[in-house]
């Protein structure tokens, strides 16, 4: 059995103005049978608390569907936001895309 993985890149400023589109994208991924959604934050410059609220909303949608939402390549500012709001522990975060791919390969092999 293989996992159906979808990658959603986040870029620029991620705030409340993107929340509705973000949730809609998550909804579509779930509908299309995605098992794991990876939010690739490589090009993400800044996130505010409304952006974080959207992420948590997305995480809840994904969990309610019995699927997984994971993050990679989170910059220092986003890391700081997660720490200041004490929300880092609700997310599974990989250092970068290759660490995510490796973990997926390891899971598949085991």
């Amino acid at each position, binding site marked *: 059995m293989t996992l159906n993985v979808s990658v959603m890149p986040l870029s*620029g*400023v991620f*705030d*409340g*103005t993107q929340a509705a589109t973000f949730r809609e994208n998550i909804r579509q991924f779930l509908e299309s049978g995605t098992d794991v959604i990876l939010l690739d934050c490589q090009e993400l*410059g*800044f996130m*505010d*608390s*409304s952006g*974080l*609220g*959207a992420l*948590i*909303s997305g995480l*809840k949608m994904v969990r309610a569907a019995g699927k997984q939402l994971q993050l990679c390549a989170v910059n*220092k*500012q986003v890391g*700081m*936001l997660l720490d*200041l*709001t*004490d*929300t880092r522990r*609700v997310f599974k975060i990989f250092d970068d895309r290759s660490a995510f791919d490796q973990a997926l390969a390891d899971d598949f092999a085991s």
Partner: protein
Amino acid sequence: MPHTQHIHVSTNLSELARILKWFQSLEQSSVTDEDWMQCQIALAEGFTNVVRHAHRELPVETPIEIDIDFFAAHIEMRIWDYGPPFSLFENLHTDPPLIDAESGRGLALLRKIANEIDYLPVNDQRNCLLLIKRRS
């Protein structure tokens, strides 16, 4: 000598990108990365709070003024709005949001980042949110 840096924007969430660009352009090599990013977050949260709450009923043209001063031992940030007086403090002392809350973290962040926080009416029908952050 400290020199006040200033920007004014309209009541529109999309102005956040311009505020961040402006903040990025302030060259303050003496400020640590951590202090810098915390101020960046505080400015963003202070601004979006005005748009979402204090200016909720006001037209998009309503200006929001932002000042920042870098002192040797601390950083002062001021955000002026035209909202009803004390609209911020109604929420400033509420409990921190639950871990899976989807909103309501802005003020908790301001409290965490700023060593001193004040919100006062000023004499031209505006309010001023003052955030003072000691340098680490």
